[in-house]
Structures are given as C-alpha cells and as structure tokens.
C-alpha cells in the first residue's frame, strides 16, 4: 500500500503536536501551582507579619493579670490617655484623673526616677541662746521651719554612666526668702576597667560616712557637731572628680578613693582654685563578724589651702557596727563613731552614737559630741538622746533633746544684747517624708 505523502506529513505533525500540547498543559499546570504556592507564601508572610506585630504590641503592653485575687487597689475607670480611639464630646465632659507621673512611668516614657524628700524641724531653746544666735540651728531658734526640701532625679544616662541631680531649698533665716540651691549634680562612669569608677560634678564628698548623707537621711536630727565645726552647716560639698577602686584579689572588701576638687568649702579650705586643689582620699573596709554582726571601718584625708594660702590637712576616722538578728527587718543595735583631726591646727573632734531598735516602728538612741574649735581656742561637748517613730519606710517623726556646753563664750555671745549660748538646752521635733523614688543606702 502506498501511503500518500500528505498523510505522512499530517501524521508527523500530529505526532509532534500532541506531545507539545501535553507539554503546554503540564507547563500551565505547573505555572498555576507555582502561582498558587506564591499566593500561599504571601498569605503566610502576611500572617507572620500580623502575628509579629501582635506579639510586639503584647510585649510593649503590661502583662495581663490572670484570674488571681487582685491586689488591694482602688477600682477606677480607665483613663482617656490609655485609649487609642478619638475622644467623643461625652468623653471630654467626663471628669478625668489628673496628670500622673506614675502612668508616664508605667508606659515606659519616663526613663529616670524622681523623688522628693521633705524635712521639717521645730526647736525650742532658752531665750539667751536665741539672742546670741548660738543654737544648733543658728538664727532659727524657737522656730518650726522647712530645713530641707529636696527634689532628686537619678538614673542611667546610657550604658556607660549614671546621673544624679538634687535640687534643694529650705529656710536659712526667719522669714527670709528661700533660695533654691543645686545640692548635687554628678555623673558616674560605671563601666571603666579594673574595678574603677569615676564620678564628676558637684557632690557630697565621701569623707567619713555621715558626710555622704543629706540631713533627712541622717539617724539624728542634726549634723554631728564635729562636722558642723570643721566643715560648716552644709558639710563638705565640693565640685571636682572622684575615682574609686575596689580590688578583687583581697579576701575582704576594700574601697580606695582619691579625689581632686576646687576646695570651695569656706569653713575648712576656701581657696577654690584647681591650681591649688583640694585633694581627698579614703580607704574603707568592711568586716562581717558573723551573719548578724558587721563592722565598717574607714579612714579619710582632705588637704587643701585656705584663702590665706595656708595648707590645711584634715584626717578622719569612721566606725560603724550593726547587729541585726537573723530574720529581723531592722538592726537591733547600731553603734557609730567618727572623728576629725586637723594636723595644721592640732585640733580634734569626735562623736559616739548608739541606737537600739527593738520594734520595727520605734528606735531609741543617744549621741555624745566633743569637739575643739579649729580656728579658736576652747571646745564644746553635747549629749543628745532621741526617739524616732516610723509609721512607714517613707515617713518618720523624731523627738530629741540636746544639752550643749561650751568652754568659752562665742563671738555671737558678745553682741551686747544679753545673749549667751555657753550652755544650751534644746528640744527638737523633726518630721521627714519621702515622695516617690529614693535610692537605698549601703550599710
């Protein structure tokens, strides 16, 4: 049989077209499948993005409280600030909570702590002491006054430094205008190597232990006489740089400190120039006698020039012992003593104090002061028993009696107004509160 050539051609074309058509169909199917997978992938990606966004929001928001007994907090309607929907006229008309720092902080917007400390003192003394202006709170005898109201800001500046600023005011003279002072402003570089730190700015110097504290944090109504006599009412507060080192190779704690300051303190130095700076140093160690008893021992030195270019060098010691029975929230017994010796003037002053706190809210104590005057002959001594009542950690009342005897009359006693403060009996009432954050103090 002869096959026509045209038929062969047709068959050949058909044979070629069928696989080609099948291939086209398969390609189309694959393309559709790929497209479908792509769409699915896009859908998954969208789901992942949505879930990630939701997770981000949940992590940013405070954790929800589960169905557990709620803390004793007052129930209040949520504030408009917590809602994202626009406020309706009815919302605007509704009474709202006042501006609250806590809420700012809770939402992570406030990146540092703020605290306010208020310290009020009332004192009663003899009329002749008031006339001479020779009481512990000179010029404010027989008054009740705000001694120190302080606003403190503190926190981490960045990963490398912490900052602290304290601004204070208080009554310096009866009825006088109260000035606002910069009490402290400093930064501390906390990530330096080899166990070192550097503090720069205006600060309460670490000379002894009580000088580091603001008056509202002291365990007594007034600053110990030795610090008031050698450094003035404010204590040693200077502008400069202080470096500390804590070695890690010793079997016990030691902190070594060195500082360079202007020397502005008028009572002890007063030259106020970095070309002839006030140099300070301190070594402090700590001995844990038992789990319940501990002793801190420190030695300090400060050497600077007076305006008359006379070099004055002061050395000091400080001791603090605490006995805190196991499980107690407060120490049962605290003993403390500090002393300052002026090498230049060969004058010495010290105090010794004891405090017993048998109950959480009550403490009883007494301080004995004895000090010579660095710039004048004579000495004074005083004894001051006191009782403190703490309704809470943030509120304290203190009642104290102080008997002071001076070996010589003060210059102020010779004003000719009949005043004399050679012997003074004073009754103090102190009320102290803390609002907001307040940093804990070591030992």
């Amino acid at each position, binding site marked *: 049989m002869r096959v026509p050539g045209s038929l062969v051609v047709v068959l050949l074309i058909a044979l070629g077209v069928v696989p080609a058509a099948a291939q086209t169909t398969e390609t189309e199917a694959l393309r559709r499948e790929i497209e479908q997978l792509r769409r699915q992938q896009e859908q998954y990606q969208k789901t992942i993005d949505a879930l990630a966004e939701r997770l981000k929001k949940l992590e940013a928001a405070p954790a929800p*409280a589960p169905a557990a007994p709620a*803390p004793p907090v007052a129930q209040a309607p949520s504030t408009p600030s917590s809602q994202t929907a626009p406020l309706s006229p009815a919302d605007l008309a509704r009474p709202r909570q006042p501006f*609250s720092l*806590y809420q700012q902080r809770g939402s992570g917007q406030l990146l540092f702590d703020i605290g306010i400390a208020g310290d009020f003192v009332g004192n009663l003394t003899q009329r002749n002491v008031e006339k001479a202006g020779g009481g512990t709170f000179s010029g404010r005898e027989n008054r009740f006054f705000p001694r120190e109201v302080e606003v403190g800001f503190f926190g981490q500046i960045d990963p490398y430094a912490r900052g602290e600023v304290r601004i204070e005011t208080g009554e310096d003279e009866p009825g006088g205008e109260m000035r606002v002072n910069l009490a402290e402003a400093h930064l*501390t570089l906390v990530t330096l190597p080899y166990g*070192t730190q550097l503090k720069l700015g205006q600060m309460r110097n670490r000379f002894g232990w009580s000088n580091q504290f603001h008056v509202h944090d002291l365990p007594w109504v007034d600053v110990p006489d030795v610090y008031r006599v050698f450094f003035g009412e404010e204590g040693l507060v200077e502008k400069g740089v202080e470096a500390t080192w804590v070695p890690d190779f010793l079997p016990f704690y030691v902190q070594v400190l060195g500082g360079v300051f202007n020397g502005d303190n008028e009572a002890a130095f007063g030259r106020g120039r970095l070309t002839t700076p006030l140099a300070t140093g301190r070594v402090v160690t700590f001995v844990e006698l038992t*789990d319940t008893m501990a002793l801190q021992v420190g030695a300090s030195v400060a050497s600077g020039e007076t305006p008359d270019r006379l070099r004055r060098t002061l050395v000091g010691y400080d001791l603090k012992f605490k006995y805190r029975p196991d499980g107690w929230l407060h120490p049962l017994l605290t003993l403390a003593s500090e002393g300052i010796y002026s090498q230049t003037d060969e004058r010495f002053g010290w105090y010794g104090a004891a405090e017993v706190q048998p109950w959480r809210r009550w403490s009883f104590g007494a301080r004995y002061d004895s000090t010579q005057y660095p710039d004048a002959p004579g000495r004074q001594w005083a004894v001051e028993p006191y009782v403190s009542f703490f309704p809470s950690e943030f509120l304290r009342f203190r009642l104290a009696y102080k008997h002071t005897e001076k070996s010589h009359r003060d210059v102020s006693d010779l004003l000719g107004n009949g005043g004399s403060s050679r012997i003074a009996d004073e009754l103090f009432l102190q009320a102290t509160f803390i609002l907001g954050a307040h940093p804990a103090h070591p030992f």
Partner: protein
Amino acid sequence: MSTRTRLFVLLVALAALVAVPSAQAARKLRVVATIPDLKSLAEAVGGDLVEVDSLTRGTQNFHEAEVRPSMMLKLRRADAVIENGLGLDAWADVAITGSNNADLMAGGRGRIDISRGIQVLEVPTTRVDRSMGDVHPQGNPHFSLDPGLAPVITQNIVDGFARLAPEHRAAFEQNRKSFLAKLDGRMAEWTKLMEPVKGSKVVVFHPVYIYFLTRFGLVQAAALEDRPGIPPSPQHLVNVIRQIKEERIKVILVEPWNDVKLANRVAEEAGAKAFVVASAVGAVKGADSYIAAIDYTVNTLAQALR
C-alpha cells in the same frame, strides 16, 4: 645565656602558653544570685561549670535587704548576677554599683533578669500609690515559688550563662533538661498530694504565695497585712479573725522573717493554725534546695488542710 638556659626558658614559656588557656577554660563561671531560690536554680543549670553564691539568706525579707559591702565584694568578683526583678531585689542595684564591676552594670553582659517571659500575677490595672502600702507596680514578684514557672526561669538562666560561656550552652541545656525532668516527677507527686485539698482557702501574712497557691488550686482568702509591707491595723485583724471563723479557714501561712508571734495570736483567736513555711530556699530547716523548699510547703499544706 647558655643553650640549656635558653631551652629551659623556652620550655617555661611554652608551658605558660599552654597553661593559661587551659586554666581559663577550667575556671568556673562565678555567679551571684540575689536570693537563694535563684542560687539553687542556677546551681541546677550550671552544674560543675559554675560557682554560685547568694546575697541573701532564706530567713531574710528580700524586699528590705541591707546592702552590705560584703555583697559588693562578691559582686566585684562575679562574672554574672542573677536578679529576680519586678522590684523584689531593687536594692541589688546599689550593691552592683558599689561593686565597680563593669560587666554587671545595667545592660551589661553579666546581668541576668529571670523575670523575662513570666506571666506576672497581681499587676495593678489602675493607678497605685503608697497609701496602698508596698504595692509592686509591675506585679507580684514572688513567682519563683511556682515550680510550674521553673522552665521559664531556668531558660533565662541558660541564656544568661551561654552569653558568657557559649561553648558550654549544650551542657547547660542538658543540666536544665535533667533538672526539669526531676522537677516534673515531683510535680506529679505534689499535684496528687494537693488534689484532695484543692479549692481550700488559706490566709497569708504577706502576699508571698499567690503563684504557689494558684498553681495548686488553693485560694488566698485574706492577708493579715491590710496593705502589703505595712504592719496590720487592729481593726483589720479583727475582721480577718471573723472571716477565718466564718469561713472555717484552717491555715495561716507566715514567713520566718515576719511577725510569727502575731500570726500565732491571730490563729489562736480564730481557731486556726499558723505555719512557718518555706517562703524561700533556706527559710526553714530542711528546705535547702529548690525542690526541697517546694516539697516542704506542699507537705505542710497537704497535711494541715486535710
């Protein structure tokens, strides 16, 4: 220098080169935990690769620990500090700053916060202030007493340790797994033991146990402190005594550092019994590890509530 001397010096130098890295490799990770519960969990995770110390003892109130320079010395020598967070051990910041240890400062590589990822209870949903006492704005911080949260806590510890010693991550993970397996076994026993008393009401002195009670299905009916951290008022105690009597509550839980005498007086007046329980590792005799502490409290409650 003779050839023998040169050879000797070379050998000493080589020995030193070999010895220094091996000594470093052999050195354990020095870890300080702020509270003993975390010390126990860190030891479980770290095993032989870590040396762990605690800044406080179980008999202390962790809210108000006194910052001692001896804490600063421990922290000065440490590679890592493990903190509870949520404001329980905020005092540790002062000790850490005083330690002059750059690695432990805020954001440092040696800082391990174990509260990450914890489902926090008692988070105030409204404005709080100090008239309400020592309320923690971020929620109740006593979550370490819930053994059900140990997986989250130990994972945070593993991550922290692995940041400092990545070569030991597998070992830390393995230790964690072994510990959690052991804990799971005990958890089954504890759940069984507490099953008959599920739903029972207890009174606490300070709100320390909410995580523990929630885990085992118990109910905190009242607290002796009307406001956390503030000594209770007589009127509040009268109300609590009345409630204990009316609801026939059998148990008052108290921490060893709290006013145990007062808890006993209230219990006596109300016809209940006060129990000093393991509010932390080391709080009572026998509670010298994490599992032992939970075991002590579970057994005490299971017996007392029957």
